[in-house]
Every structure is written in structure tokens, then in C-alpha cells.
């Protein structure tokens, strides 16, 4: 669950106002697209949710953590309730598929037995069974993104936040990935997909939050993404 009230973010270094009085709520179990043109503030919202940056003013609650008052050393606890997926996959190159996924479990102190049981299950769920011993550079872009999804899923997070997850994929792979997200959402996990791919968003009848110039300019459930992006 994410709740943002009157959130403003001004970058100290450049003085750029990235967000200006944003109000936003994403409830437990929702599937939400966050759309908008480049520089609209999408990535800033995502970074505020993951705790990479702090808001200048306003209040932010992520999975019951107050992201304004939270101490830096407590951030790992928030991140363990989230599964984060990036456009560039961000896999550890010298680890196998299995280890990349198992690593996320080791971070939270899971036992070897739990890891051995859970990782194959998640890899099967994302369609990567049989690829356990491969290294990231031996996989296609779509497969690498699936590893990233498996890693995000493995600790059963309350919410998955995906930043332009289909940015490096062809349309077929992009659609497959969205279907996978839909499947994960049906299992109860909240999904937030940050994207500017209009056709992909319009292929699904989901809630679409539009952001432009640091303001929320649209919020329609089952609505269509009509903004011109780039």
C-alpha cells in the first residue's frame, strides 16, 4: 500500500521541482500503471517509494512505514516488503540465475532449506525452470527480466514496483511480461508499473495514474492512456 499526501520533491543540486503537491493512493492488491512523459516525475515517485530519495515536504506511507521519518538503517526493512524491477534488469553478472534469486532470500536471513524449496518454485512460476545454472549474459532480454521478476517475487513482497520493465523488450515479450504481472497480481501482490508505453497500457484494463510536470493529471480505473508521451 502506498499513500502520498501533498508530496513535493525539489532536487537540491539543480533546484528542479520534480513533484509538486502530489496526492496518490495505491491500495493493497491493486494493479496500477503510472504513466507520463519523460521528466514528468514517474521515476521520482518510484525512488520515493523505495527510499532512494527523500521528499522535500508532504507525507509518504509505504507498506505501513513512514518514509519521511524513517531512519536510513531501517530502509532495508521497507525494501523487503517491496520487489523492485528495473528496465536494465540489474542482475549480478557473476552469479547464476539460481544465485541471483537465492541471494534476495539470503539477504533476509532465509535458511538453505527454505531457499532450496522456494527458488525453484519461483523460477518455474516465471517460466525459467531449467535455466538455473545459466549466467545473465547467457539469457535473452526477456529471460533476464524474468530473473529480475523472480528475484523480486521470491520473498513474497506485498508490492512489486517495476520501472519501465519492458523498455528493452520487443512487443511480444513485453506483452508476455505484463501477463506475468497480471498473474502475480491475481495471487494477491500489489503491482505498480511505471511506463510510457501507451499501447501496452491500453491493452490492459487497469487503473492508470497519469503524471505530468510533477502533478497528477489523471487517475482512471480501467481507463485508457491517451497522453502523448514523446
Amino acid at each position, binding site marked *: 500500500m502506498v499513500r502520498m499526501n501533498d508530496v513535493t520533491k525539489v532536487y537540491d543540486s539543480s533546484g528542479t521541482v520534480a513533484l509538486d503537491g502530489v496526492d496518490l493512493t495505491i491500495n493493497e492488491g491493486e494493479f496500477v500503471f503510472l504513466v507520463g512523459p519523460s521528466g514528468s516525475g514517474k521515476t521520482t515517485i518510484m525512488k520515493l517509494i*523505495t527510499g*532512494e530519495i527523500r521528499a522535500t515536504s508532504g507525507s509518504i506511507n509505504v507498506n505501513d512505514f513512514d518514509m519521511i521519518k524513517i531512519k*536510513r*538503517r531501517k*530502509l*532495508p*526493512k521497507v*525494501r*523487503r516488503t517491496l520487489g*523492485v524491477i528495473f528496465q536494465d534488469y*540489474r*542482475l*549480478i553478472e*557473476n552469479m547464476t540465475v539460481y544465485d541471483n534469486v537465492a*541471494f*534476495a532470500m*539470503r*539477504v*533476509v*536471513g532465509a*535458511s*538453505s532449506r527454505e531457499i532450496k524449496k522456494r527458488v525453484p518454485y519461483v523460477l518455474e512460476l516465471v517460466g525459467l525452470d531449467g535455466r538455473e545454472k545459466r549466467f545473465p549474459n547467457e539469457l535473452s532480454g526477456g529471460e533476464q527480466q524474468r530473473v529480475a521478476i523472480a*528475484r523480486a517475487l521470491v*520473498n513474497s513482497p506485498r508490492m512489486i514496483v517495476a520501472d519501465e520493465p519492458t523498455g528493452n523488450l520487443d512487443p511480444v515479450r513485453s506483452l508476455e511480461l505484463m501477463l506475468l504481472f497480471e498473474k502475480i497480481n491475481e495471487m494477491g501482490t500489489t503491482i505498480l508499473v511505471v511506463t510510457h508505453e501507451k499501447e501496452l497500457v491500453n491493452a490492459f484494463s487497469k487503473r492508470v495514474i497519469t503524471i505530468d510536470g510533477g502533478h497528477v493529471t489523471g487517475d482512471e480505473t480501467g481507463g485508457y492512456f491517451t497522453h502523448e508521451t514523446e
Partner: protein
Amino acid sequence: MRLSRGGYLIREGFRSIGTHRFMSFASVTIIMACLIIMGSVSLLSVNIDMLIKDLENQNEIAAFVDDSIVDPEAAEALESSLLAVDNVSSVEFVSRAEAYDNFVNRYDEAIMEGIDETWLRHRFIIHLTDIALMAQTKAELENVPGIAKVVARLEYAEAFVTIRNVVSVISLVLIVMLVFVSFFIMSNTIKLATFGRREEIAIMKMVGANNGFIRLPFVVEGLVLGSLGGGLAFIAEWGIYELLTGRLVGTLTGSFIKVVPFRSMALVVLAFYMGTGILVGAFGGVNAIKNYLKV
């Protein structure tokens, strides 16, 4: 922290050394090179210091016994009073008969014609602990009852003290400079080694790893590489030292030059090398990733 988790992190540290072979090799080599340079200057300094001390020891004081004490045994009894004087390290009694024989042996007997031992005094040859205090010790020796005169080469002592002080200051400045330069080079090498892994650290942070979880493999890696660098530097230093001192002693046989045997310093050198290697490796690694943890 669970034991299995600790074991995993330690294994990760070792695995990482193999994975980042080139940077591991570079770190060990730089640590080793810096330690050898630092160590060699320190060992040279130790040897120069010993050489100067050796020369200082040859600078002795002669204390002449009063003419009124003729009996050698009575004169020799003054030894305990002389030993009681501060800064006196050793006292050797030379009777006037022995002194006469020494003169005869050293110079032509013809010069000594018409002179017998009664012309000479009983004396003591005195060595000092610290020749910098020679003037003060000389004055105290002159006050010992039964001592008529004390002869000391104060100007030589001052020269030695000056040389020793200058050498000490130069060595110290050189070593301190080398320590700073070495730490700078070593920590930069480690920073370079970890720079390539900032993305890996960012991923760890994003999946919820706490700083301790990220640091431990770096600490293990730093400890292993640092002790490896220190150990190899020690072996190399030993070899270089034996080779150079062997050649030096071989070339200057019979000269006054003596060198401190490496074995007598081996433990200190090993402790210094391993200590510095481990310190630089472990703290350098943790320090290098500090900025990447602020995500």
C-alpha cells in the same frame, strides 16, 4: 546473525576474490610493493642506527686513578664506585703495568727508553649507555674519590649524537612520508577494486540487504588479500635483505660494517607487514564501499 548466514558471507568473500581475479591480484601486488618499500627504508634505518651505536661504543672515556693509590688491587676496588655512576654501562680496569705494556706494544720501544710503569697511572676504560650525556657523566666521574682525571672526547661524542639525530629525523620523515603515500596508494587501489562493484552493492541494497550483510564479504576479502600481501611482502623482503646484506658483507669483508641479522627482526617485520596488510585490506575495503552504501 545465523551461523549459516555468517558462513555464506565468509564464502562470498572468498568467492569474490576468485571472481574479481585481476583486481585481487592488483590489490595484493600494490600492498606488497608498498610494504616492501616502507619496510626496506625502515630496515635500512635500523642498520644505520646500529652502525652509529656501534661506532659510539668505540668512543670510550678514560678515568685515571690518583697517584697516591699505587696498589693495583686498591685501584681496582674503585670499579664499583665507577659502575654506580649513572649512564656507565661497563668499566674495564687497566693497571699501570698493563698500560705500559700496551704503550710498548703500540709504539717503538726506543720512545719508552728511560720511562717505566711508575710514570703511568692505573686507569679505567669506561663505556657509556648514552654518549649524548658524556659531559655530564664525565663531571660525575671526576667527583668519584680516588679518580684524579677523566679524559673524554666530547667533540667526537657531539658529532656522533648530531649524526644520529640527523639520521633519525631523516629516517622518520622518510618512513612517515612512505606510510602516507603507501596508505594512499593502497586505499586507492582498493577503491578502484570496489568501484566496479558499486552496481552489485546497489542491487544488494535494493533487495533489502543491510549494511552489515554487504560489508562482511568485503571485510573477509580485505583480510585475505591484506594478509596475503603482507605475507608475500615479508617473504620477498627476507629474500631481498639476505641477498643485499650478503653481497654487502661479502664486498666489505673485514670492514667495520655489520648488519642486523634478519632473523633477529623477523617477528617484528612479520607482525608489521601482516598488521598493516590486514588493516589496510579490511578497513580499506569497508571505507571504499562506504559511499555506495548510502542508497
